[in-house]
């Protein structure tokens, strides 16, 4: 079963909710270039590294959507080292987050290899407006890493209540406008008013991949991912 996120401009809850959640877990992300060789694995036939995470019910889950490829996947947290979290899908593609901010990707193509985020992170988590800079290192096609500096304006752009698998959560919405000499992007973060953590975000991962959306999710895999602008429908 193939999941496609379609922007319909209205709120809609996925139909085959139960199989939908499980399917997101099974198929892996296979985000890069709509790789046709990556198909949904039969339930339970995971590589050992991922099977261990599925078996451990204390491991948290997250839903990741790559907008440009209209693909979603359910990721499980494999590791947490010094505040840096590595989330993997069943095909062992990874998204790396630091306090919910995109720190890197592995296996998505044109890697955001690593990022230095301390300045914007301080503003976003504390709900302050201000200027900051961040560094992005990209692994290029010629196997070299190129690091760019971005200057960013972080602003509070309002509040909103969003519906996620983990519940309906009141949030403060933060935006971050960034520019380098030749690139520009705008990230949006939904910071929970209760916990102070980023529970949903839309972040730029580079020219080729574009924006990645992350949403906190449950382990139950019964609900469908929900968002305020788009819809995930099955088939």
């Amino acid at each position, binding site marked *: 079963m193939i999941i496609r996120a379609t922007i319909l401009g209205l709120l809609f809850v996925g139909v085959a909710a139960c199989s939908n959640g499980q399917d997101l877990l099974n198929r892996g992300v296979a985000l*890069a*270039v709509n*790789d046709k060789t990556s198909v949904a694995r039969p339930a339970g036939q995971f*590589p*050992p*590294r991922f099977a261990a995470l599925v078996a451990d019910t204390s491991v948290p889950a997250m839903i990741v959507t790559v907008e440009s490829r209209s693909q979603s996947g359910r990721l499980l947290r*494999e*590791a947490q*080292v*010094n505040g*840096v979290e*590595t989330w*993997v899908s069943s*095909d*062992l*593609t*990874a998204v*790396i987050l*630091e306090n919910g901010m995109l*720190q*890197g990707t*592995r*296996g*998505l*193509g*044109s*890697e955001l*290899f*690593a*990022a*230095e985020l301390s300045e914007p992170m301080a503003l976003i988590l504390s709900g302050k407006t201000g200027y900051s800079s961040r*560094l*992005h*290192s990209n*692994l*290029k*096609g*010629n*196997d*070299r*890493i190129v*690091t760019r500096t971005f200057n960013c304006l972080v602003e509070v752009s309002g509040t909103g209540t969003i519906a996620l698998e983990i519940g309906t959560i009141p949030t403060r919405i933060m935006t971050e406008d960034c520019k380098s000499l030749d690139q520009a992007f705008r990230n949006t973060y939904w910071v929970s008013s209760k916990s102070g953590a980023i529970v949903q975000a839309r972040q730029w991962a580079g020219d*080729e991949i574009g924006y990645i959306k992350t949403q906190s999710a449950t382990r139950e895999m019964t609900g469908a991912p929900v968002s305020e602008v788009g819809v995930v429908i099955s088939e």
Partner: protein
Amino acid sequence: MQGRPINKASATLIAAIGALAAPHASAQSLTTYGTPGLIEMPTAEVMQDGDLAFTASFFGPNRRYTGTFQVLPRVYGSFRYSHIKNIFGTSGYLGGDTFDRSFDIHYQIFYETARRPAVAIGLRDFLGTGLLSGEYFVATKSFGPKLEVTGGLGWGRFAGRNSFSNPLSVIADRFKTRPTGFTGTGGQVETGNWFRGPTSPFAGVKWKFSDQTTFFAEYSPDLYTLESVSTGINVSSPLNFGVEYRFKNGPKLKGYIVGGHEIGAQLSYVINPKRPRVSGGLETSPRVVGNRDRLAIADWNNSAKGGGKAAVQRVVAARLSEDGMKLQGFTMSGRQATLRVENNRWNNESQAAGRAARVMATTLPPEIEQFTVVFQERGVPISRVVTQRSDLEELQFDYDGAWRTLARTDIADAYDQGRLGELDDVYPVIETSFGPYLATSFFDPNSPIRADFGAQLKALYRPAPGLTFSGRFRYPLVGNIDQSFRGSNSVLEPVRTNAVRYAKESSLEINTLSAEYIFRPGKDLFGRVSFGYLESMFGGISAELLWYPVASRLALGAELNYVKQRDFDMLFGFQDYGVASGHASAYYDFGNGFSSQLDVGRYLAGDYGATLSIDREFNNGFKVGGFFTLTNVSFADFGEGSFDKGLRFEVPVSWLTGRPSRKTVKQTIKPITRDGGARLAVANRLYGLVTEYRGKELRDGWGRYLR
């Protein structure tokens, strides 16, 4: 490389590249000659550095197939195979058709600025029989984003309509006339003809209508004088018009009217080696290096649960195997541990080093701080990469992690590794494989591409490190190489020109059957002795020594062979001809993506001389290069082409698929294979075997160490 002009698996390469490569955003329009320009006329433009353009064009009697490579930001070179139907009338050889190989070179003297046009100088078909030869100076200026105007002066083929006396004759009178014909047997650099004879102007405009569509109009002085006699080509108008459509996935289709009457079309495709299908690759995420103290209670490290060195070794071997590497040795004592590994997956060897270090960091007990990874090839230790565990822990997510880990890593020669810690079950290694093979032969005038397809059995037995017995047996099923009429007409010993006879007189063939010993005689030294049926046409003994310090850009080698020519049935027998051959070789990596090799010595036909090769190697392993050989055989005795030369390329399979693999698709293209300057095609020459694991290559690939 040498031998039957044969190599496998590349007839499909261009198709594969076309199907898989990422579309290329901006590229120049290409002419019928496959070079940046209008319809037939060149512009002063160049492509992006490293671009490779493939073009097939058809109009009138002309069919041209061209590959163009942007060698340097200002220089491109082309190789072309052209077919002109009926140029010599029906009475001529091959029904009057001609098949011609030609080379071009173009140098952009000035790039375009707001006020100044781009200016370039170029030579078409400067090597060879000169059928398409012409030289030009050209200037191109753009006016806004849509319009580009070009004007130039041409000599040779360009000097047709409205020609005038050569302005260069103010320098010397000899510029007034252009010599006709070509020197000797063709294939030489015809400097004596360049920019000589009358001159004609040419001009044109290019109008970019949209991102997809471009229109062209040009004034061409080319009268197709030679072709117009018999081919019926009609170029009565000097004006050519064309339109090009660029498909969204990259290919460009162009249609044109040449000379007012000849309607034609061409298809072209441009790739850039710096842009593989998936930047960064589709492989799995590496293991995260976590808190090492948690590993103290892992089952394999816990003696209460049967843990210990043997259990650790099992886990390390299993995890390396998940990452495509074979554990061949393991030691662990005090604060350090060493793995000896054979890398069977990663074409970026630094990435293999990083993956092996991560396996250690996520498995070994917490007291182990220093990790050593020894890379082995055919059981022989080559280099060791030494990392500190705490550095991996600190830098695995660092934005400057690649550079910082490299600065803290020690890369050293592993000549003194001995057999310490070698696993008991590594030897003997036995490998067999059965599959198809494809052998190709190019540029036979009767059939430009010939091929044999058949079944191949490969077997390998390695009882000890470096000692390998191996064989390759082939049985052709279908093919047409043996139907060629090209026999040897060589005045030299026919060491290569009997390729067709080998194909005709063999069925089940012993392609190779040999014993080989590779060893480390000392620090920075590698040795090889090979004995047996070393290649399809020769058997005997070959010995080689290579000096290659681990951090050096320079390597020096020497090779001595005594070989006899094999029987045409390619079984066990030999012919009478035997020869001692050998070379002294110097290898140098310029550090800017270019590397070169100079071999000086004696070749198979007993001739003495030297081969110079230059390759551009992109950091991801994509290679494009060329070579030529000059020996004491005269150009006349050498025969067609005058001397041995060729182009070669190598494309990593990972570049095509996005998945790591040590396989490559490679091909050497020689305009013609003759007997002069022919080298023994022995397998596993040392430089190629070890260079990927020496310091220069490992450092260049370090961007993927943490991938």
